[in-house]
């Protein structure tokens, strides 16, 4: 009736190949990409320790940390640091507050809220460089709708990105437009993942809404807030697309954030050594930040996987 046991072995029983090699084989291509990243990286480190100008090849020399030492007394460097920090602080701060507010508004999973949250994600899906272009069109002094609207409230000839005093504001505005949805999406997911019990209990006890927000919601949201903020800080301090697309770093040096400055240093002044050194400083900052971020992110990930 049934098969006699053992009649139908699959393959002759032989020792299988050492499958200890398998994981290494599978990840070999990824390893190659890794190496492909690390080689240029170490090259950049190498360059940062040299005086290296493409236009003056005969002056190329190894000067150890002189590039970095020069930064300390260079007003342009400190301008870059200042603008970058200011940009980061403004963008992340505004996006956090705005994103949190919107997330709170959309907290309940109603149809309208869900539609809204998807619709609000759209700016995030647009290339930041193109977003800059869109805002450039809208702030054109001749036909831009925003210039027109602003003139209606009395601000004639508002120069937006062409004016040193308002350039930073303009690019911050574009950044806020593009990236607030990112904050909102993350914080909304976090809000919806919060356990309902503390809130139900607070409601039963008649606790006022502000108390609930500051003492219950915010503390529970903190891991998401920290993760999202670090993520955005990492992006903002090295922002290139938005600023370059808008003004290429101008007017003057008002928007010379790190990567824009490094880019111009390389392509306009052909100063490879200085450019590399500037990028190394930026890298050091992002390295510290990303380590902090990765720790937070892993913690959040464990929580998500654990609950799944």
């Amino acid at each position, binding site marked *: 009736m049934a*098969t*006699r*046991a053992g009649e*139908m*072995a*699959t393959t002759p*029983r032989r*020792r*299988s190949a050492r*499958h200890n090699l398998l994981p290494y084989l599978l990840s070999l291509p990824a390893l190659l990409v890794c190496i492909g990243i690390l080689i240029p990286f170490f090259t950049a480190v190498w360059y940062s320790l040299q005086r290296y100008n493409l236009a003056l090849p005969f002056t190329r020399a190894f000067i150890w940390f002189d590039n970095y030492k020069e930064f300390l007394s260079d007003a342009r460097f400190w301008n870059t640091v200042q603008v970058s920090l200011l940009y980061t602080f403004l963008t992340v701060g505004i996006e956090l507050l705005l994103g949190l507010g919107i997330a709170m508004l959309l907290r309940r999973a109603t149809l309208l809220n869900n539609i809204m949250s998807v619709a609000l994600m759209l700016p995030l899906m647009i290339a930041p460089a193109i977003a800059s272009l869109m805002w450039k069109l809208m702030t054109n002094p001749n036909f831009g709708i925003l210039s027109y609207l602003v003139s209606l409230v009395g601000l004639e000839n508002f120069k937006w990105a062409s004016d040193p005093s308002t350039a930073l504001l303009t690019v911050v505005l574009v950044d806020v437009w593009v990236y607030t949805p990112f904050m909102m999406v993350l914080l909304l997911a976090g809000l919806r993942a919060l356990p309902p019990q503390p809130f139900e209990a607070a409601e039963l006890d008649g606790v006022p809404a502000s108390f609930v927000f500051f003492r219950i919601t915010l503390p529970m949201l903190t891991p998401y807030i920290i993760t999202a903020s670090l993520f955005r800080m990492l992006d903002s301090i090295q922002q290139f697309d938005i600023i370059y697309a808008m003004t290429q770093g101008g007017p003057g040096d008002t928007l010379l954030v790190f990567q824009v400055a490094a880019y111009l240093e390389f392509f306009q002044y052909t100063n490879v050594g200085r450019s590399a050194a500037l990028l190394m400083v930026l890298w050091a900052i992002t390295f510290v930040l990303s380590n902090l971020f990765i720790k937070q992110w892993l913690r959040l990930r464990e929580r998500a996987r654990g609950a799944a």
Partner: protein
Amino acid sequence: MSYLTLDGVKKSFRKEEVLSGVSLGVERGETVVVFGTSGAGKTVLLRLIAGMYEPDEGDIRIGSESVVGVGPEARDVGMAFQNFALYPHMPAFENIASPLRARRRPEDEIRRRVHRIAGLLRIDHVLHHLPRALSNGQKQRTALARSLVSGPSVLLLDDPLRNVDAKLRYEMRLELPRVLRDFEATVIYVTQDYKEAMALGDRIAVLIDGRFAQVAPPAAIYREPASMAIARLFGDPTINLYPCRPSANGEGVGVELFGSRFALPPACEEAAGRDCLIGLRPEHLQIGMERSEGAVPVELDAVTPLNVRAVLLLKTQAGEEVLASCSEADALRFPRGHRAVWARPAMETALLFDRESGERIGPRRH
């Protein structure tokens, strides 16, 4: 020569030794139940035989060949997992057919065999459903069918009845041995339920502290447990244990218990003079309303019905707790609220364990 041999198998995970030298020989067509508490290493043992892990030391042989280093797909074993492990994206038919497809059997043979075993396990009406549409019982039988369908050399069943409701568990306990015998399978069956072990096993291998503490047929495990730990694991309610010190006098060996002296069978003479624990199973205590030969006065504290038996909680004059069991009918004889009864232990069934090592030292058999 045994069909499946484990020889001094050791396995550690992260510095913790789960199996510290396990040896067993399973005959062809035999069902050996590996019994132990949770975390004892039973599942690890099954996975070692299946080929999901490799032993740190020792050998595993199927037939006469060692399978250490051979991948699971080449070992010709069938395994039914505790949580079923069905392929969620395939209907039940494909789940069961999987081992046959791996062996490249022709389509009509696959169809025939899958339907036959599905009929045997009464799931042929749900073969086209995806696993998520099946009840737990149907999932379990699908997993079982999958493990059986190719007639593997060795069948590994990892507590298959654990996640299944009580009624089905009872039914399967009757059905399984029949199905397994039909397939003439050599089976390793893992469970934490001693009743299941005793019902299904030709032999039971009790796994304690990473080793087999005893490998014997069910009756022997129950009547002649090798240690106190094993005696405790088998039997519901648990065996009664009391410290004692058997002594020899002119009339033979005896023991002081519950304020009286009881005679022990001569086979217990090795226990004389040693610190022991005496074990008396609840069903071996006769409880009666009147005094009888060899009975001691006890107080009846509580009566608990348990299936068709009743469990009696008694207290001796010295305050020791005693559990006894008797049939429901017998229990009904005691008038409500009645306290004073008499307990007569059947000393011929008493077990003596060394107080320190837990090993059984009496009575000696054959």
